[in-house]
């Protein structure tokens, strides 16, 4: 079975590596989009440094607001374990990615043993306008969450109304069931607001943290951040310890420089600042669109060459084909994961290492 192609021609892996290395070495402005586990991310960043390239996660657009919450505001956070064991009141903020739903539902059947309570109260703050639904509305009903919303209010507006309402301020639009929440909050020992990124209204994340801060003046409260994508958040954390910065970092003069606008890879491709695109993802659902005539080197979990790619190399999926280390929102940190279906496909980190070694010094 072939694992490497130059154009549409199957070649030995070493030949594909050599060809890709030549393209990378001759590029004036290579850019890297990637989606990998911790070890893949480590190798990608090391390669970017060697090339003087810029890198971003393939879900960099979704990460922007989640990263900005930390780089610009901060906040008060807790862990999924504490939510399960201590939170006697849970307020779900808007839509939460489907990958987290099982965990949220599992809390409903687990006692908050650290507060000695057998049950907990649920609320769901949501936008009062049509929006994509991941199924969170259905799950909220299932756990008996009281709905909080206001006529015509977006999620960001609803968060603002909630903060104002809890602070006793008058608002132009009433938030339905606010009094129920006030009563529940008065009784709660450790309320937690569960949220994910809100790409349309980034300031709503800061507003929510303001609300949590308000509550902590006199009682305890916290929030649980559930990233839009666990693997992407793991890449953020890895990038931060390796370079000091999240993705959308480049090495223009050897040292890392973080700039979410300047190193927006899609923008660089669109505006033809980049002259080579190295795209890396072993996710089955990952979509890749080649940008114009900019040469593409693709590392993908594929049986066939990627259309229009100058070089395609098949790579293994972390956690499926090989053991991996990933970020997991189930525990709020990294975990070691055994391969579920071990295979001989080359690992991203291994291919990147070979690519790096094939580059001229």
């Amino acid at each position, binding site marked *: 079975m072939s694992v490497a192609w130059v154009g549409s021609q199957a070649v030995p892996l070493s030949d594909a590596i050599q060809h890709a290395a030549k393209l990378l070495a001759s590029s004036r402005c290579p850019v890297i989009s990637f989606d990998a586990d911790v070890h893949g991310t480590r190798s990608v960043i090391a390669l970017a440094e060697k090339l003087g390239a810029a890198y971003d996660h393939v879900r960099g657009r979704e990460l922007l607001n989640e990263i900005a919450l930390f780089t610009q505001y901060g906040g008060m956070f807790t862990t999924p374990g504490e939510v399960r064991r201590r939170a006697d009141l849970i307020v779900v903020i808007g839509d939460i990615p489907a990958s987290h739903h099982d965990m949220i539902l599992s809390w409903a059947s687990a006692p908050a043993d650290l507060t000695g309570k057998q049950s907990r109260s649920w609320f769901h703050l949501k936008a009062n306008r049509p929006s994509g639904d991941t199924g969170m509305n259905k799950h909220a009903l299932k756990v008996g969450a009281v709905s909080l919303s206001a006529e015509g209010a977006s999620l960001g507006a609803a968060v603002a109304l909630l903060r104002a309402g809890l602070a006793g301020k008058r608002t132009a639009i009433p938030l339905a069931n606010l009094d129920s929440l006030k009563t529940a909050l008065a009784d709660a020992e450790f309320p937690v607001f569960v949220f994910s990124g809100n790409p349309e209204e980034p300031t709503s994340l800061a507003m929510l943290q303001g609300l949590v801060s308000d509550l902590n003046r006199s009682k305890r409260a916290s929030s649980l951040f559930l990233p839009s994508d666990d693997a992407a958040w793991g890449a953020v954390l890895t990038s931060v310890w390796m370079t000091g910065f*999240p993705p959308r970092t480049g090495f223009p003069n050897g040292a890392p*420089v973080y700039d979410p606008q300047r190193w927006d890879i899609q923008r660089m491709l669109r505006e033809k600042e980049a002259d080579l695109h190295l795209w890396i993802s072993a996710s089955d659902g990952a979509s890749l669109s080649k940008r114009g005539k900019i040469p593409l080197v693709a590392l993908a979990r594929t049986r066939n060459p990627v259309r229009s790619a100058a070089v395609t190399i098949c790579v293994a999926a972390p956690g499926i084909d090989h053991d991996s280390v990933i970020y997991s929102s189930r525990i709020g940190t990294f975990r070691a994961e055994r391969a579920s279906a071990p295979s001989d496909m080359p690992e991203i980190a291994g291919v990147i290492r070979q690519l790096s070694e094939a580059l001229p010094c």
Partner: protein
Amino acid sequence: MLIRLTGGEIIDPVNGQSGKRDLWIQDGFIVDKPEGERADKTYDLSGCIVMAGAIDIHSHIGGGNVNTARLLLPEQHAAHLPRPADTPLSNAGWSTFTTGCLYAQMGFTTVVEPAMSPYNALHTHLELADIPIIDKATLTILGNDDFLLSLIRDKTSSDMMDDYVAWTLASTHSLGVKVINAGAAAAFKENVRAFSFDDVVPAYGVSSRKIVKTLQASVNRLGVPHPLHVHANNLGIAGSADTASVTIDATEGVPLHLAHLQFYGYGTEGKRKFSSEAARLAEQVNNNPDVTIDVGQVMFGQTVTISSDITRQFLAIGNANPKKTVIIDGDGNGGGIVPYRYKKNFYGSLQWAVGLELFLLIDDPWRVFFTTDHPNGAPFTSYPELFELLMSRDARDAKTAELNASALELTTLGSLRREYTLDEIAIMTRAAPARLLGLKDRGHLGSGAIADIAVYRRGRDIAGMFREAALVFKNGELVVENGKVVHLRWGKALRLKPTPDKAMVRRMQAYHEERYGLSLDWFTFPDSAIQRDEPFAEVSCSS
């Protein structure tokens, strides 16, 4: 390869052989002069002093809280690139890579991350594995976790307590145990905002004192070389000296290490009700051979405080500079990130003086350790200036002239004329840390030691001498030359490896399945998860 270092002045208090002599290195170790063999490489170290590689016992260099601080403050890293001398955290060593390089350039070859949350152990070790050149180690935090507090509440046997501590050490791959504001983080989750040594965690009915004494005894029984590492209650507040004092008194014949004592050196005298109690604490330390301390010296400028003392960090939010913070109610301790700028005002001047008083008033350099509690008191890159302050009265006097006079009047600093000798520096930063941590293979220059060697060019500029080592060898490999890294290598994380009791493993499995709905392997990891060749090295327990 046989290496000869000749002509240098050897500072090696452990072996009592300070003075000019040759050192020989072979296969990564210091060896006696091989009879009849010629060196493959000889370094002429005339005009230089030669010490063992330095060991930092308390520096927050990796893990969840450190990484969150990086994420919170990208500008602190970016700002220094074009204007290195004048910007915040200008030499902070912010990434894992720069951390290893900057430590090595100063002649440090082993550094301990003193606050690893058990559930963040994998994350911490992944970061440490990316710190080049130096060896690392971790201390695991216990004392606010539900399992331990429940054992104490239920008056469980000391054997079971030891089994839990041993399981934690083994599963987190660490070198020792730390307790941080014992019980306070658990109480804070119940909205308790002040917590002292004899206060009780409401949900468990267990006092802070009881937690400390329980862990101290267990660590001692297990033969963990490093005594229980204690971050006491009431850090940073006026009157905290009383807390430190009762904690020191609680040693009761069993070793205990008190971390960053400077932050507890405060009394309530004077117009501002904030004064120095360093002299009292130093005397107490001098009179109690069971206690060791590190200082946590404050130096001036921008830094960020990173602590698993969530109660303290929550209360410090109002002092944040710049105005952004992260507070984490974690499993067990959690933590807080609060950026802070130490100014040469009354408070900053007093804190600076208290640290120096402790250094200069504690007589025994084997029991006082050189730290800034990086980055809490200052980034570790300020060490060279701190060496100069300890070794030069003139340097202290010059600095004192820049500071707040009314603060300094509340201290004894002006009357202290002691100057540390090179032998004392070598004890405090090499020999004593190795002994405190149970690292028999380093901290000295005797035959059989790992060839971790720092060579400094002797000069009048003490800070300059310690900022840029002339040569640094790590495991016999030349890694720094003239203050610049010339060779990158990967060090190891030093760990104890107690064999966990099988019944305790089963109990932990059941606990995690019942309480977290997850099997134990979600919280533990094999060595292979680090993906470095031999990422760990074992240190023996004493029993």
